[in-house]
């Protein structure tokens, strides 16, 4: 089990959120056990809804999903971009690697084993930190949203210190979900095909469709690139140098090659940091906006659906009036549809504008930080290389 405690919010800043004293949420601690992660959700609030001003509960991933799904299913929230659910904690790959390492312990030197173990543990820790951050971001987004923060389920989530008894979906439910999604995407295509009178939404529809696909592609490609970067580091190229010394470089010249070996150790550490930073600032950013752009698309879908329903209700009303049959019912239906549509449209516009603002801010922050970190590491590497070269050349 690995523990993660921080007093400072560990928000992977893919979101630029204003901190509000009335409600502050963070994940103050997390514990990784064999097959689950337990997050300690810590809340500070001046709101009267809560019994105390500060409190903590322990939650697992399924409970976050339950909360997210409850938002999605809530008709009142149809006009909002629902903050995307955090991805399931996935330590499988990392665990597998650690296990393989354990199995292969006999075939490598103690040094090599220790080094690799350290690296894999660092990797595990990095994944752990990420999953904590992503769960935290979700909660912060909810807390920052003017309406969602008041949601009852949210308050229960934050305050109820017993298990929420939310079980993961069983096979039947998962199958149901699958079919729901199929229907939804088919419907989504139909809905999207309906041209919108409103230019703003028509533009957003086109934009989001393309943007989402491109972000998906960029996310996949960035992942691949960073994985390559990391795998390159696992080649024991510099590790072998010390072993070569007694054989390759007799007596006097050991100093030279020792220096080289030290150098490679250090530059390798820096390269590992580079890969880790790229992962955080670039890959994670893209992944997050992949999910958010999907949430935005979902919003547009709901609005489009409501629009279609509204238009259908209008047609039905006309028909009913023409036939003079069930007119009242048709009128009521039409009213409901109209209200629903207008409510969604009203908030959707602002939500989409906010989305753009958030997105631009997040990209700016991350790209700047990425560039600054790349520069820092490159300069660090350069300095190491140059000073080593100076010594080596002087030696000869």
């Amino acid at each position, binding site marked *: 089990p690995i523990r993660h405690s921080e007093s400072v919010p560990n928000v992977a800043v893919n979101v630029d959120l204003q901190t509000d004293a009335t409600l502050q949420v963070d994940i103050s601690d997390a514990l990784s056990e064999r097959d689950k992660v337990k997050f300690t959700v810590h809340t500070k609030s001046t709101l009267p809804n809560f019994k105390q001003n500060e409190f903590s509960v322990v939650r697992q991933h399924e409970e976050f999903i339950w909360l997210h799904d409850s938002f999605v299913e809530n008709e009142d929230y149809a006009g909002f971009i629902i903050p995307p659910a955090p991805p399931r904690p996935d330590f499988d790959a990392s665990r597998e690697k650690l296990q393989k390492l354990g199995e292969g312990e006999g075939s490598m030197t103690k040094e090599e084993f220790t080094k690799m173990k350290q690296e894999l543990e660092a990797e595990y820790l990095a994944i752990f930190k990420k999953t904590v951050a992503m769960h935290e971001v979700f909660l912060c987004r909810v807390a920052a949203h003017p309406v969602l923060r008041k949601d009852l389920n949210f308050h229960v989530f934050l305050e109820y210190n017993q298990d929420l008894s939310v079980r993961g979906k069983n096979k039947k439910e998962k199958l149901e979900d699958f079919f729901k999604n199929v229907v939804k995407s088919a419907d989504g295509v139909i809905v999207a095909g309906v041209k919108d009178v409103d230019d703003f939404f028509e533009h957003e529809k086109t934009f989001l469709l393309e943007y989402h696909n491109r972000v998906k592609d960029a996310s996949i490609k960035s992942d691949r690139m960073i994985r390559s970067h990391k795998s390159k580091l696992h080649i024991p190229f510099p590790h*072998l140098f010390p072993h070569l010394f007694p054989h390759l470089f007799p007596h006097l010249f050991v100093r030279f090659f020792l220096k080289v070996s030290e*150098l490679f150790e250090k530059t390798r550490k820096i390269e590992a940091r580079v890969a880790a930073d790229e992962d955080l600032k670039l890959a994670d950013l893209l992944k997050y906006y992949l999910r958010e752009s999907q949430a935005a698309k979902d919003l547009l879908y709901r609005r489009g659906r409501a629009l279609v329903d509204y238009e259908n209700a209008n047609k039905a009303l006309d028909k009913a009036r023409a036939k003079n049959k069930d007119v009242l019912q048709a009128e009521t239906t039409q009213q409901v549809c109209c209200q629903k549509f207008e409510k969604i449209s009203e908030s959707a516009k602002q939500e989409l504008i906010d989305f753009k603002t958030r997105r631009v801010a997040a990209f700016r922050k991350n790209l700047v930080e990425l560039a600054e970190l790349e520069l820092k590491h490159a300069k660090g590497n350069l300095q190491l290389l140059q000073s080593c070269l100076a010594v080596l050349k002087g030696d000869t």
Partner: protein
Amino acid sequence: PPSCLPAEDISTNSNGPKQEILLDDDQEDLFAEATEEVSLDSPEREPILSDGPSPAITPVTPTVIITPRAEASMFDRSLDEDEDTEENGDTFDMQITVSDPEKVGGFGCTSLNLFSRNEFSVKRRFSDFLGLHSKLASKYMHIGYIVPPAPEKSIVGMTKVKVGKEDLSSAEFVEKRRSALQRYLTRTVTHPALLKDPDVIQFLENTELPRAVSTQALSGAGILRMVNKAAEAVNKMTIKMNESDAWFEEKQQQFENLDIQLRKLHASVESLVCHRKELSVNTASFAKSAAMLGNSEDHTALSRALSQLAEVEEKIDQLHQEQAYADFYLFSELLGDYVRLIAAVKGVFDQRMKTWSKWQDAQLLLQRKREAETKLQYANKPDKLQQAKDEIKEWETKVQQGERDFEQISKNIRQEVGRFEKQRVKDFKVVIIKYLESLVHTQQQLIKYWEAFLPEAKAIA
């Protein structure tokens, strides 16, 4: 003062060696090295000190040249003038350049004598190089000289680098071969004895070379086969060589270990090269994707920044490719060379064993002849007795020769190994420094690219 080891640069871009300073250091180092070695094996103190050089006295080389005199019948060259030049203390620092064969139909081979400023340019086929090596190996390996092995005939041979999905392009293959040939020739002319060899001189200077006549080019693989066969033969020998000379045993073990470690390192470098190429492909792919994302982004400044990011990543991809080139050509090739060189070293150690066994056989036979003679003493057969006495004389000479040969090859090998170890260190130092310089260049470029990008990122409003 003459030098033991002319300084040279085995890289493809030869800037010419620094003569003065390096040589003095070499002399001192060699002496110091000898002392250090001595402290480890005390029984060897005597032989090493008397063989080894001291800065004020004669260098190593002349003794090496004089020896073949005993074998003068084996090759047709005048030794006197060689000996003279050696005693005059002339050294031939030679710079070899092998150029691209593309249109000329053969490898252009330029040798520049840095002392006399004589320059020769000739055209040679790949088989000519192999032929040269074969001749040198047959002449010198049995007296203990480490003859630099020729490049592999097949490119797959030692290295199995797959560049992405495709194998080496033809341009890369030609460059690899050209570079290998240059290193091969440079190593050959660095050897003080080989430099004077008429076959080598002919190779470097004659416009036309007779076609290699039925020479079995001893490639690295070939030598290994030979070594393995010899090892088998030794194992079959009933009389095990009494290794009174611990130095040889120790060295042999060292070379075994070195071989293993080099192969590991070689495999590791190849893996590194592969990964870097893969990283390059993935970086290029990401760059394109980022450009597309930038296109679809509707915030102008962010869109521009993303396009800039795509450009940066494209340039970084280029860097990765160049770095992979450096990794490969610098390290991988050098390691491959050394794996082959070690095979050649093992070859001479085995030659020594053969020489020893020949000597032992002669001793055994002499013993038998003496016994036979003693028997004949009582047999009253005067003719046969005389014949026996003649045979004894003959074998006594052979035994003496055998002992001399063994001592000579042992001596030669010690010197060769010393030279080899120094050379090895030099080679690796040069390559490592070059490699570090390439890494420096990469980092400098990275800094340039990211510094250009940063303001673009900050400009997003």
